[in-house]
């Protein structure tokens, strides 16, 4: 009996330890959990495109993202948001970064700890791009973590499964199964993060990109039956694939806005004897993209 009690006691102690052992307590632990280097062996084109993308540095961006996070921590959490309970980095928990990590690092929220949140916060304050590049929106995040939105129909994303366009075995030691994703080629896949408006589900809502809102409410009504998806323009046309470029890409820029300029010179006569030599310039700008410009 005593032995059984000891065993039960030992199990009770071990259970929370086992559960927390599955969570990443540091940037390096998370990077290891979400290591995508093996994807490159069979998908070199997609991997190389992704490597050059902004998704591959979702906590760094064009370095403005780092600045945004630093401002959010120092100017928001530690200063303006006086009821957040954060005076120093040691007070930071995952929940304090959730409204940004919802999109910039959803896997940190899924598989990270408060300890990891604090390590990331310190890296943001130091503007340590090299460290922050270890955490990114990578193959696993899109093809597993964010691959299902209809969770009452499809359930949670399963461990060891890569969601895409096929079903069957997958030659990866960790992700051994392929399953079809219902949304991978739909605009909602991108719309999960390239947002709708204020994220009102958080105690202090944030508002980052509102592009998907613009897509739904401005583009779709204007496009009629010729509605295209995010993937059509940002991946398929010009064959840019997993680079998924936007305004920084010359082909995308050319496709996005039509500009016509006409200019004419004449002498405008307002009243007798007051002939004004004048040029009239007309600029016509037409947005041909599937969302407002600019947005993100």
């Amino acid at each position: 009996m005593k032995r059984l009690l000891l065993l039960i006691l030992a199990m009770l102690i071990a259970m929370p330890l086992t559960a927390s052992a599955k969570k990443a307590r540091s940037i390096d632990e998370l990077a290891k959990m979400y290591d995508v280097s093996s994807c490159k062996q069979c998908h070199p084109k997609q991997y190389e495109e992704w490597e050059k993308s902004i998704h591959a540095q979702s906590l760094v961006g064009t370095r403005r993202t780092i600045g945004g996070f630093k401002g959010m921590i120092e100017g928001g959490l530690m200063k303006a948001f006086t009821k957040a309970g954060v005076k120093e980095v040691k007070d930071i928990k995952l929940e304090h970064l959730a409204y940004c990590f919802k999109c910039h690092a959803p896997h940190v929220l899924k598989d990270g700890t408060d300890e990891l949140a604090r390590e990331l916060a310190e890296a943001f304050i130091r503007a340590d791009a090299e460290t922050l590049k270890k955490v990114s929106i990578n193959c696993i995040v899109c093809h597993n973590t964010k691959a299902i939105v209809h969770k009452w129909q499809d359930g949670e994303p399963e461990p060891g499964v890569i969601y895409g366009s096929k079903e069957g075995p997958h030659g990866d030691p960790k992700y051994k199964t392929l399953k079809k994703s219902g949304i991978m080629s739909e605009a909602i896949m991108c719309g999960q993060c390239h947002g709708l408006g204020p994220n009102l589900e958080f105690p202090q809502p944030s508002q980052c990109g509102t592009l998907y809102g613009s897509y739904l409410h401005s583009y779709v009504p204007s496009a009629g039956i010729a509605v295209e998806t995010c993937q059509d323009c940002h991946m398929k046309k010009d064959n840019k694939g997993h680079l998924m470029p936007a305004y920084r890409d010359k082909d995308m820029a050319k496709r996005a806005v039509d500009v016509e300029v006409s200019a004419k010179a004449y002498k405008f006569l307002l009243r007798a004897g007051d002939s004004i030599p004048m040029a009239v310039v007309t600029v016509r700008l037409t947005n041909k993209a599937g969302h407002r410009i600019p947005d993100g």
Partner: protein
Amino acid sequence: MTAKTKDGKEVFKDSKIYMPQATNSRGDAMIYGAHFKMGYVRDTSLQPFQTRVETYEIKFPYEDVEKEGKLVRDIKAKEMDIIVELRYQLDPAPGEEGKDSFTFFKTIKTVSIQ
């Protein structure tokens, strides 16, 4: 939009800003920062499939001078270069091309008057 005479003198300059403008939804001050923004107060961005037309009237440089007891309009430059540029700019200052701002379109139209 910039207009210059052939000797390079700038005679006109104007810019339009196309962007959604946010507040924190508890006042009338526009703010930056995703963590502070919580709604748009104004949106001047380019909307899908819509055409924005901007018209500029630019006077050629002139001076009214008296000649033989009469006021005569002396046009100082009869030719101007009109430079039209559309930039995707990440900050209020243009910064470095290809890093802080990206030129979507640029053209120069030369206009002349008799």
